[in-house]
């Protein structure tokens, strides 16, 4: 895509949208994700995380704006940068962190790690080590919901990198012809690994990738939790009314580089500063205070509480044992 279509960075949400939500819950969940991720970053730097970990600090508004709009029975399929989705969908952070460290009490027994967390009891079809891999899983869960007539909706999250996987286009086409209750959510953080989205993505816009299938497609300020929530509620209403899929392009930013430890030489400082000014936590905190939903002191208390929770999770996960050798060959087949 040409420079003229560089992503819009501005907010521009209508304040009227999404005000009936539990604002403090949105804030607290975003904060929990941020503290969790920053702890994972420290653990990774200390060499305590096996495998690669991809952190979503900066993308909390997209994670939380979508997931907290869902009903408990709705499905999500996540991707390699998926801790925030798991937390928002309710996976306990101590079990999630133990999983990331490959420990026995991890949510998957310490056999899956950051990129392969499957938490089906919470209707999370999993983070995914294959770029685009979760897309058909969510579309398939939507197909199941349609076949049963049970009314659940499925959301698939993917990065801008997955825009160029054929799988996305196959699934968008099928979701459209079958009017599936699925929401495609692109978390466009501008880069796939070390490559700028614009350099590898053709066409007039990202939305056009959905529009070509007749899927209602909107660009959303992914740094603004309310904007994301409002767009998700619209898409959910359409899905539940049998009107089929939607495509949300959430423009957002990852602070931490591709994986924990990435020095990010490929980003320029100006760009980083511009996005940091839009930090979803800082901006939402200001809004909450301005709207008198909380005082600064109350927000500080929430932060203290969240920090304590994460600290406990870290202590729990670090102290947890490695999985027993006898578990190695379990659950290959039923």
């Amino acid at each position: 895509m040409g420079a003229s279509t560089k992503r819009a960075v501005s907010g521009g949400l209508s304040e009227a949208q999404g005000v009936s939500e539990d604002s403090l819950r949105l804030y607290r969940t975003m904060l929990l994700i941020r503290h969790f991720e920053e702890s994972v970053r420290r653990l990774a730097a200390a060499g305590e995380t096996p495998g690669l970990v991809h952190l979503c600090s900066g993308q909390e508004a997209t994670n939380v704006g979508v997931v907290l709009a869902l009903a408990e029975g709705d499905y999500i399929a996540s991707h390699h940068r998926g801790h925030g989705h798991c937390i928002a969908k309710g996976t306990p952070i101590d079990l999630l962190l133990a999983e990331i460290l490959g420990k026995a009490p991890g949510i998957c027994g310490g056999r899956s790690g950051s990129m392969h967390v499957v938490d089906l009891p919470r209707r999370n079809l999993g983070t995914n080590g294959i770029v685009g891999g979760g897309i058909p899983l969510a579309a398939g869960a939507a197909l199941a919901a349609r076949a049963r007539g049970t009314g659940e909706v499925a959301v698939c999250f993917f990065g801008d990198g997955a825009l160029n996987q054929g799988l996305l286009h196959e699934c968008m086409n099928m979701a459209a012809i079958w009017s599936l209750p699925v929401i495609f959510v692109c978390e466009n953080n501008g880069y796939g690994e070390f490559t700028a989205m614009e350099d590898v993505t053709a066409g007039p816009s990202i939305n056009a990738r959905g529009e070509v299938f007749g899927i209602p497609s909107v660009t959303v300020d992914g740094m603004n939790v309310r904007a994301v929530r409002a767009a998700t509620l619209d898409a959910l209403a359409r899905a539940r009314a049998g009107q089929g899929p939607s495509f949300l392009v959430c423009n957002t930013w990852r602070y931490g580089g591709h994986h924990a430890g990435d020095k990010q030489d490929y980003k320029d400082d100006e760009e980083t500063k511009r996005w940091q000014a839009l930090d979803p936590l800082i901006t939402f905190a200001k809004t909450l205070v301005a709207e008198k939903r909380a005082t600064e002191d109350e927000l500080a208390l929430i932060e203290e509480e969240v920090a304590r929770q994460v600290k406990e999770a870290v202590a729990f996960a670090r102290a947890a044992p490695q999985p027993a050798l006898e578990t190695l060959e379990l659950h290959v087949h039923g």
Partner: protein
Amino acid sequence: MAEMITFREGVLEALFEEMRADPSVILMGEDVGAAGGVFQQTKGLFEEFGARRIIDTPISESGAFGMAIGAAMAGMRPVFEVMFGDFMTLCMDQLVNQAAKVRYMSNGAATVPLVLRTTMGVGAGLGPQHSQGFHAWAAHVPGLKIVVPSDAADARVLMKAAIRDDDPVLFFEDRLLYAAKAQARDADESLPLGRGRILRAGRDVTLIAIGRMVGVARAAAEELAREGIEAEIVDPRSLVPLDEALLLDSVKRTHRALVMDAAPLRYGVTGEVAAVLSEKAFDWLDAPVGRLGAVDTPVPISRSLESFVCPTPARVAAAVRKMM
């Protein structure tokens, strides 16, 4: 006496029965709906079960199979058709990285109860991209189950077992068997996968064959019987799980074994089975375990070349004579 059914009808009957019994069973594939399947293998299903359960997919094997996996994780039991086994390559990532690993990755909390049904068959003049069987490839992937039925009766009971199984099952149908008839059999209807069958008793050598190779083994056994060599024929029916006990028991009685398959010999099913026998029945063997497979080439379209690709009764008989 039970009626005679063709292989094609055997699988179709299983689909009708399981779909009637369990509303979570759905069928997905190309032209499987009103058209009744390109081999007429899904005829009548659409009329009875409708478009919500008999789903005509676009030609998008990767995405559609991935969706079958998602549907399975969300409580359905999809049977997914891949028209020609060769096209399974388009589903490979979904199969290997998602379907096969979900149970393990979720520590047993999530399952993928689906059947990937596909066809193969050397000998129909369909050439390099429409003949191949990938059962050996798939058998190498932890987490998948592999079924290769050899006749109509087995096709029916094994498809029923595959649909009821909670793991991803790959069901390989040899198109050259589609019109072959056998007597329907209810006896082992409720057996789980992993049980083989002795199809012919014999004292001198065990012929281990799957799919269409069972017929080749039978013809060879008749030829050998005229020479006084009595071959036992064992069909493991599924490669994963493999009924090792049955194979070992037979070989310990006959002291000789020949393993055969219609897919390329190199790194294939025959090598694996031969290794199991050699490791676990070495002291009972009077000759090295023999094996016969297809030649290690793509499948040519020329009739004369193609007829040379797979083991024949004459080649099986010759191989047995050599080990006596």
